[in-house]
């Protein structure tokens, strides 16, 4: 009988001991941040992002955060900003989707909590609409700014509810309004058909076309899950319907994998419309990688798209600067050479990385999260690759408000349509696309402290 008690005590004791031993792998007293600003010390500022480094959305998108980190590493090599180096921690959330090669933690809230535990001053450039939607309240309740979300959703432009939440890229509506303006001018009275993603990427994008005065004759929405499970053949009935309906222009609000599926199916069916593709899924290098270069010539050549940043063919000084920065970051870009093309994802990440560095410099040596946000709201930032200078305000947390129309000129490059006129508009229903006079398609000037 005593043996039974000893056994029971030993059982519970061993279980508790095992648990204690396991807990010891993370045992530490919670530490306070000196000076009270989370993620900031006298010599370092720590920021973070949840991005799809592996998994279903990683092709192409995994480069975005790394390109920003390359910018921060370059800034650090020049002494940092106001005496502080920038530590940029990337947490792999696999776009919140398990499997498909995911080696991270496919839960954005879990990964965001891991960043908050570091702690971080802000999240910068986290990627994805549903993923970042899922942590808006978490970051808000912890007082951590959520900056430059990589998504064109309207959800980041809600200053009343989320005063510390900011987007960066133009909204899907802005892009579609500008492209609708282009389609009406270039393909007047031709039948337009639409294929979009069945979330706000597609609904906002379609709405932008309508706001821009263009209502497609056929509207089809696809499911990413169905595409993943069914493969490219999931799109065959959609493209076949466009073909049999004699669509002359096909507008795609698609991610790169879906763009490749649409183009591949059209090639198989012998269908050759004018393709107009959202910047989200038009990068030729990324799409060609998905197609594995099997279709020759590249079916995307000649397609029209949109860019808020200088195109590959533009002689922008930012191209050489980004090349220099990526070359120095061998950890993130081990295979990058001086002759390597800069794809849209690299340019994208480098651009908001530059923006963060500029805001940090403007914020001064002593700042808080509140004063940093105030700096962002009350200044313009012309010294970034963005074609239209960033200017946030109390009523605009979206970010960029325009760009130019470009065309896919080769398997690796885009070039301006025409002379590279830069347009701007907003996300309202007003059909108000206007030209930005005198705006060069090469982006803003490179600040001297970044050269």
């Amino acid at each position, binding site marked *: 009988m005593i043996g039974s008690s000893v056994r029971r005590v*030993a059982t519970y004791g*061993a279980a508790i001991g095992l648990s204690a031993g396991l807990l010891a792998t993370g*045992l530490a007293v919670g530490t306070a941040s000196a000076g009270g600003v989370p993620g900031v010390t006298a010599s370092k500022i720590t920021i973070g992002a949840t991005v799809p480094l592996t998994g279903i959305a990683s092709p192409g998108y995994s480069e975005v955060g790394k390109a920003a980190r390359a910018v921060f590493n370059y800034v650090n090599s020049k002494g940092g900003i106001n005496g502080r180096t920038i530590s940029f921690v990337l947490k792999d959330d696999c776009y919140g989707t398990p499997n498909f090669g995911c080696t991270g933690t496919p839960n954005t809230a879990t990964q965001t909590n891991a960043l908050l535990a570091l702690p971080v001053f802000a999240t910068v450039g986290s990627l994805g609409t549903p993923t970042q939607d899922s942590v808006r309240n978490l970051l808000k309740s912890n007082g951590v700014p959520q900056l430059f979300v990589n998504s064109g959703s309207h959800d980041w432009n809600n200053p009343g509810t989320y005063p510390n939440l900011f987007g960066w890229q133009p909204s899907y509506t802005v892009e579609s309004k500008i492209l609708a303006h282009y389609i009406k001018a270039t393909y007047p009275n031709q039948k337009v058909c639409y294929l979009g993603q069945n979330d706000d990427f597609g609904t906002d994008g379609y709405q932008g076309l309508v706001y821009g005065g263009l209502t497609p004759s056929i509207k089809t929405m696809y499911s990413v899950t169905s595409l993943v499970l069914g493969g490219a053949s999931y799109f065959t009935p959609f493209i076949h319907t466009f073909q049999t309906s004699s669509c002359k222009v096909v507008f795609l609000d698609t991610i790169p994998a879906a763009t490749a599926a649409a183009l591949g199916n059209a090639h198989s069916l012998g269908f050759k419309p004018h393709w107009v593709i959202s910047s989200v899924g038009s990068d030729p290098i990324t799409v060609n990688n998905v197609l594995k270069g099997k279709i020759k010539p590249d079916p995307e050549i000649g397609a029209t798209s949109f860019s808020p940043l200088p195109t590959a063919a533009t002689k922008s000084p930012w191209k050489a600067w980004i090349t220099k920065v990526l070359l120095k970051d061998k950890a993130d870009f081990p295979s990058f050479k001086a002759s390597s093309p800069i794809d849209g994802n690299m340019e994208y990440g480098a651009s908001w990385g530059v923006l963060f560095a500029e805001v940090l410099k403007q914020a001064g040596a002593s700042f808080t999260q509140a004063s940093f946000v105030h700096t962002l709201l009350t200044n313009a930032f012309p010294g970034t690759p963005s074609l239209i200078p960033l200017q946030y305000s109390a009523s605009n947390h979206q970010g960029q408000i325009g760009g130019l129309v470009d065309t896919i000129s080769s398997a690796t490059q885009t070039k301006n349509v025409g002379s590279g006129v830069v347009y701007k508009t907003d996300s309202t229903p007003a059909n108000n696309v206007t030209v930005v006079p005198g705006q060069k398609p090469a982006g803003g000037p490179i600040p001297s402290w970044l050269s």
Partner: protein
Amino acid sequence: MSALFRVGDALRVYRDRHPVLWRLIWTVVLVAIAVYMTTHLSATTDGLLATGACMSIVILGLSFLTGASGQVSLGNAAFMGVGAYATAIWANHHTTTPVAVVLLIGALSGAAVGLLIGLPATRLRGPYLAGMTLLFAISFEGIVLFFGSWTGGDAPLQLPTIAVAPQWFVDRFSSSIPLFTLNQMWLADIAIVTVGVSFFFMANLFRSRTGRAMRLVRDNDVAAELVGISLPHARVLAFVVSAAYAGLGGALYTLVTGNASYSTYSLGLSITILSLLVIGGIGTLSGALIGGVIFAYSTTWIDWIVGKTGITQGGNLAANLPNIIFGGLLVITMLVAPYGIAGAIKMGAGKVSRRFRVTRMPMASG
């Protein structure tokens, strides 16, 4: 030494005479120790504790279904999802509901769906029952998308406000401790108390007349019928209890993460829960706790393995490492310790106590 034995005997007598009170005292003591520990742990560890607590509740429910009534379910992750979405949907419409009530809603939702599926499912046995629960697991995503106007569809359904520590809790600590650390501590404490309550109820249920009836149904359903036990009633009840615990685990996990997403509650998670049940130990409370801790720390350990071995991040091996490790642990457990880690500890302690008993007897007779 003999005084110690007399105290032990007295405690044993008290335990036998007042088993429910005994379990309650143990529960309160262990919960109090665990809650105290959270005040000295890092925010990361508190977060992992909260995650492990959620999973241990789910594993316990499955342990009851499998260990007590001999049924198998491959749909427990989906029942978790039911609790998760019920919690998130309720919280979006009623923002001031107390946490305890929200968790109860999650558990009851799991139970309701468990009853709906259990009524036909428990007429099946063995692989056919597993197949029906597998069907529920696979269709869960489709159900969530079908009711997209309620669930948010593809996008995770956020809680309108994150569960943050109340002011009276914050006031107990130094103002230099970051708010995030206090919030994680608060979540971990909620999770530990929920584990305590749910484990207490399960311990009593297991040892009750209902629990004994279920074990008889598991071991000899003919004999069970002969003594008047309703087989369908017992099986459905076990299924509902298991689903309720899974719903409670999902509700708690929603509080911890701040949102509900169908991609979290996949068939893969159901398989993981089953694996953790076997690795921890079927039919034991401590086995469920061990399974929960393994789940919480698995990502940390795998990251450590990848870092130390130089396996390529994003490569095929790294992507499949969790499945390899869980599968390997499952095989090793079945070969070496069929009763799981908890069973192995008990057997090891039993060997020690038998040696002790042999040593003691000459003293008692002397």
